[in-house]
């Protein structure tokens, strides 16, 4: 239990400071379930945001987060506590999400096109911009979509995106540029008419 290692750290108190997090990580590495639960509580929202930028649906994001934390739990003894835990964890999350996307593609390729349900959305109801944006996002590569969402929605820097997705910072910058150019081209009409 963490209490036996660091009595001053409460698992339910707000977490502040890298030193506190390091103590929790070390406790989790020594087998404390409470400490690992605290890490989940601290990082699950950010982890969700990372995987949500990569997968296509909220449900897939939930699956990827669970799988990511499972991988992190198994690999915890290999983590060096002098490194930032968040960066390490989000890289694992991104890999779990990318794995899920790959598996979905294989599964979808095996299914007959007739089985793919395309829900009807009334443009007047859901908003034409969102409708068009959703459609335009499908024209991006998985990585371009992930980069633009991580940058514009989650506020990641290019460096953070590169570390999370395992790509050079310059590639993240380039992906963002191309993603924007594609969206700009595809949404030209709607923007000029609005």
């Amino acid at each position, binding site marked *: 239990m963490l209490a036996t290692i660091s009595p001053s750290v409460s698992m339910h108190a707000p977490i502040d400071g890298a030193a506190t997090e390091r103590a929790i990580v070390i406790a989790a590495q020594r087998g404390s379930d409470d400490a690992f*639960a605290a890490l989940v509580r601290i990082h699950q929202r950010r982890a969700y945001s990372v995987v949500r930028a990569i997968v296509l649906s909220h449900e897939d994001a939930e699956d990827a987060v*669970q799988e990511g*934390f*499972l991988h992190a739990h198994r690999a915890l003894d290999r983590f060096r506590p002098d490194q930032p835990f968040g960066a390490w964890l989000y890289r694992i999350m991104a890999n779990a999400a990318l794995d899920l996307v790959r598996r979905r593609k294989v599964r979808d390729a095996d299914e007959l096109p007739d089985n793919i349900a395309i829900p009807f959305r009334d443009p007047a109801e859901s908003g034409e911009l969102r409708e068009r944006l959703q459609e335009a996002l499908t024209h991006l590569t998985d990585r371009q979509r992930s980069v633009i969402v991580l940058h514009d929605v989650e506020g990641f820097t290019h460096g953070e995106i590169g570390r999370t997705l395992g790509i050079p910072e310059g590639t993240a910058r380039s992906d963002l540029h191309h993603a924007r150019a594609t969206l700009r081209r595809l949404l030209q009409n709607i923007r000029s008419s609005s």
Partner: protein
Amino acid sequence: MTDDRWMSGEAELTGELRTMYAAPTDESYWDSLEARILAHVARGADVHGWWSAMSEMARPALAAAAVLIFVAGAAVMHSRQLEAREAYASVISAAPPSIETAARTASSGDGDAVINYIMSH
């Protein structure tokens, strides 16, 4: 338009993206997700532990099986070699009588028959 920023008119797109990708805001949702994550990890840890135990037991079992197969193979080879040696030895030791002995026996038998024929006539 720069590489890194939308133009002012395009801020609407960013707003729409944020709406589309917004994480749930309900606290109870995160409590529930946390519980599901921990349950998933616990299940995974159980399975992982089971597999680890199995793989730990599998290594010595595989080594023992390999030794057993080697010993059995050596025993089969040895018994086949023995059989072959015995068969060869039996062929060598059970050689037919020499031609001279056979001829002598045959000739003495013929002589007796001739004498018996003369005496009876």
